[in-house]
């Protein structure tokens, strides 16, 4: 049985390891979860991912796979039911294109917003709003990026939740809201309502606290 011995090394707050949890749960794959302390990485993690020593790492029957999108493709190819990528090559290309966009453009922009100030921060916010408008163009009128059910891009776009929590930690509400980005906002509500997805979101209060600790001076105290 391909299901034997699945382990996932991750952290509670990393959107990247959370993605893998969603993928595994969507497929109904049983797995052992190992919470890593990234300031004190376990020998097991270093053994399974000596190249970049990062989470997430999926270990399947003793064989490690690293990099969140690589892992997601592996999961989809190994457990073929409930596919997370569509069948059509063009649709697959679109999902991969926008997933890449999220990691290469959206994620750096989101991280900058938390540490930037004044005019620079405003510029970063404008930039990320444009990015989110681009994503809305891909979503259009669908329930999820994957159509009727969660797909590769919905899972990849979990970083948007990170941004929403960051927004709250900053005491802001103007980056992503219903007025500015109604299509994406609607999608976000459906995402957070989804039975599988909502189990894989960092607990909000704990996440807010972490923001305050990490980005203390940028965050207005409540």
């Amino acid at each position, binding site marked *: 049985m391909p299901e034997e011995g699945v382990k996932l090394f991750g952290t509670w707050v990393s959107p990247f390891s959370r993605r893998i949890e969603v993928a595994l749960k969507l497929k109904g794959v049983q797995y052992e979860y190992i919470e890593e302390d990234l300031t004190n990485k376990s020998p097991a993690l270093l053994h399974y991912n000596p190249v*970049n020593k990062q989470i997430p790492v999926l270990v399947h029957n003793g064989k490690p796979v690293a*990099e969140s999108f*690589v892992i997601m*493709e592996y999961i989809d190819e190994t457990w073929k039911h409930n596919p997370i990528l569509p069948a059509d090559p*063009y649709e697959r*290309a679109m999902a991969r*294109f926008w997933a890449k966009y999220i990691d290469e453009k959206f994620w750096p922009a989101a991280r900058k917003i938390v540490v930037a100030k004044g005019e620079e921060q405003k510029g970063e916010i404008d930039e990320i709003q444009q990015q989110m408008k681009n994503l809305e163009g891909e979503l259009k009128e669908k329930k999820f990026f994957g159509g009727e059910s969660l797909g590769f891009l919905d899972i990849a776009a979990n970083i948007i939740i990170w941004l929403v929590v960051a927004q709250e930690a900053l005491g802001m509400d103007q980056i992503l809201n219903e007025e500015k980005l109604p299509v994406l906002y609607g999608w976000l509500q459906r995402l957070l309502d989804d039975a599988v997805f909502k189990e894989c979101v960092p607990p909000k209060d704990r996440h807010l606290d972490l923001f305050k600790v990490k980005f203390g001076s940028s965050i207005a105290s409540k």
Partner: protein
Amino acid sequence: MAEENKVKLHGMWASPYVKRVEIALKIKGIPYEFVEEDLVNKSQLLLQYNPVHKKVPVLIHNGKSICESLVILEYIDETWKNGPPLLPQDPYKRAKVRFWTSFVEKELLENVLLVVRSEGEAQEKAIKVVFEKLKLLEEGLKDLFQGETHHIDGENMGILDIVLCSLFGAHKAQEEVLGVKFIDPEKFPLLSSWVTAFTEVAVVKALQPPHEKLVMVYQFLRQKALRPSAAGVEVKEGVYVTSLSRSSPF
């Protein structure tokens, strides 16, 4: 009907990202029309087909555009199943290939570009990082090939071969311009023999610009990064890039 199946590739002769797609198309035996883009004066078509990034390569197939070279490579593999596969069949082997492809793209390529664009202490630091990454790749190749000789020819180049080729196919030009030898057979024997092997593949050879042109490209990239505000260079840049665009060697 013929229009539907037509393949067009918008590209630029000096771009290694475009090169990746060309190699893949040729390996699969897919006929295509190449549209040379002037990157200073991007065509309306390019801006229409890639509004998000406005970059090459863009593949047009069945009237639809696909952007980002790695996304295009997977699209090609999934659409034209008759030609040689660009990825292995087994999911775990596919994951390893994708992992190392991502490593070359993010860890190696970025740092090589940093070496090109820097000098002095900053460059020395960047060079050190490249050597560290090369060492990791050399180790990774041992695991990837599992002690077997990795035989490459025009029939079995995969995405990792293609991506590595697009970076180090120009290693001699890099060496000449940067004064650093990355593909050192003594330090990295597996990697060096691999690079030698793929530069000998007929398809790659046919697509490779001449050495002097590659030297010019690297010199230009370096000049642009280090002395962009030098008198006259900004004005000249447009002309230089345009002349780069138009001086396709084919």
